Every structure is written in C-alpha cells, then in structure tokens.
C-alpha cells in the first residue's frame, strides 16, 4: 500500500515537472519586463513626437498620457489588450495603457447591466481604488508641502 502510494506520488511529480513551467516566476517576470518595456518605449516615441511639435517635456506629458489611453482603449475594444494582460500580467497592467484597459474592459462587459449601474459603476472597479488612494497620497504630499513651505506665503 505504502509502496503503491509512493509510486503514485513519483508519477505525479514527474508528470507535474513535465507539464508545469519550470520557473514560472522568472518566466512571468521576463514577460512583464519585455511587454512593459516595449509599451514604455512606444510611449517614449509618442512623447518625442509631441516634443518635436514644440512642446516641453512637461507639456508633452498630458497629450502623451491621453494618446496612450486612447491606444489602450482601442486595443481593449478590439479584444487585443486582454490577451496582452493574460500573457504579460503586470507588463500590460502597470503602464497607463493598462489603466485604460482596466476602465474600458468592464465598461464593455457590463453594458448589459445598464448604463448607470453597469457601465457607470463597474468602470471603476479596479481604476477606482487606484484613483482613490492616488488622490489621498497627493493630498498627503500637498499637505506636507503646505506645512513645510506653504504658510509663509
């Protein structure tokens, strides 16, 4: 009985080593690096384009963000971006295009639940927490700045 169990266990381990990826963590990180890096390089291209039009690096940041959000939205609409997220995880989710994906994908999916409680509410399921805590952090930073340097004005 114990022997049969042992054999069973070995067979399971061997099967698992054949089927499961050997270093999933390393592989996932490599994919995130490659895809995330490519998206940022594309962002650099967009920013360079706006700077060639005469905008400073600071001024170029806004239209660059908006255009990348547009790209992320269109690719999400076409069903492409969700494949990138499945393949690269954070490599696709961490760039601002992924932020657009987090808003657009549920907006599409929950339209059947109506415009207000579906599209309107679900749009911010993932983006909402990001905006809430990002806003709170910005208030903390602004308050810190005000207390250290502000009252003098």
């Amino acid at each position, binding site marked *: 009985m114990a022997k049969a169990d042992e054999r069973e266990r070995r067979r399971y381990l061997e099967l698992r080593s054949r089927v499961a990826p050997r270093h999933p*963590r390393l592989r*996932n*990180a490599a994919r*995130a*690096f490659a895809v*995330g*890096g*490519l998206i*940022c*390089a594309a*962002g*650099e291209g967009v*920013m*360079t384009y706006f700077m060639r039009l005469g905008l400073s*690096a600071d001024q170029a*940041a*806004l*239209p660059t*963000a908006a255009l*990348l*959000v*547009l790209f992320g*939205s*269109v690719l999400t*609409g*076409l*069903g492409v971006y969700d494949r990138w997220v499945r393949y690269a*995880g*954070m*490599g696709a*989710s*961490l*760039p*601002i295009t992924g932020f*657009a994906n*987090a*808003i*657009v994908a549920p*907006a*599409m*999916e929950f*339209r059947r639940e109506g415009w207000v409680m579906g599209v309107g509410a679900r749009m911010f399921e*993932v*983006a909402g*927490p*990001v905006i809430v*805590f*990002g806003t709170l*952090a*910005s*208030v*903390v*930073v*602004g308050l*810190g*700045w*005000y207390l250290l*340097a*502000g009252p003098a*004005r």
Partner: protein
Amino acid sequence: MDYLLAFAFGGFLCAVAQLVVDSTRLSPAHVLVGFVVAGALASGLGLYEPLVELFGAGATVPLPGFGHALAQGAIRETAEHGWVGVFTGGLAATAMGLTAAVVFGALAALAFRPKA
C-alpha cells in the same frame, strides 16, 4: 538611447510588480494601488523627478508615473494657491488622462461587443 532607457526602466518596474504579484498573496489591484501610492510619495520626497529625467517615458508611463503626476500637481497648486491647492492639485494635473479614460470607456461600451 532614450528608447532603450525607457524600455529598460519601464520593463524593470513591470517585472518588479509581477514578482510581487507572484511572490505574495496581494491581488494585482492591491499591487497597482501600492505602485501609485509609492510613486506619489517618492515624488513628494523629490525622488521620482530624477528618474523621469533619466528614463523619460520609462518612468512616466507605468502607474508610479501617475502617482508622480498627482503629487507634482498637488505641490504645484499648493505653491500657487495655498491650502486650496492641497485639494485641487492632484486631480487637476491628471484630469486629462482620467477624462480620456472615462470618455473612451463610454465610447467603447457603445461601439464594441466584449470578445469572450
């Protein structure tokens, strides 16, 4: 060279985020929130601007760059308008990206059917 730097640092941030997701029990949403807050606080301490200058879009395109924009907006408007800026600066600086996402989200809900 600018492209290579953007690729390297943006990829690095994404790989770190992925490692955190794979190595802890935090959900991707938690990690995204953590990266935005970390970016904002680092920016408030003056640590993020040098990264932006060196790595360009590699530092601004990932979500910590969104935190950086929020924090710099809060600082700028606080410097200009006093305590009112504490409340207006962050969202004012990121209004374009946020509004774009809402508009495109609504348009996509009109125009596209979800695939799967």
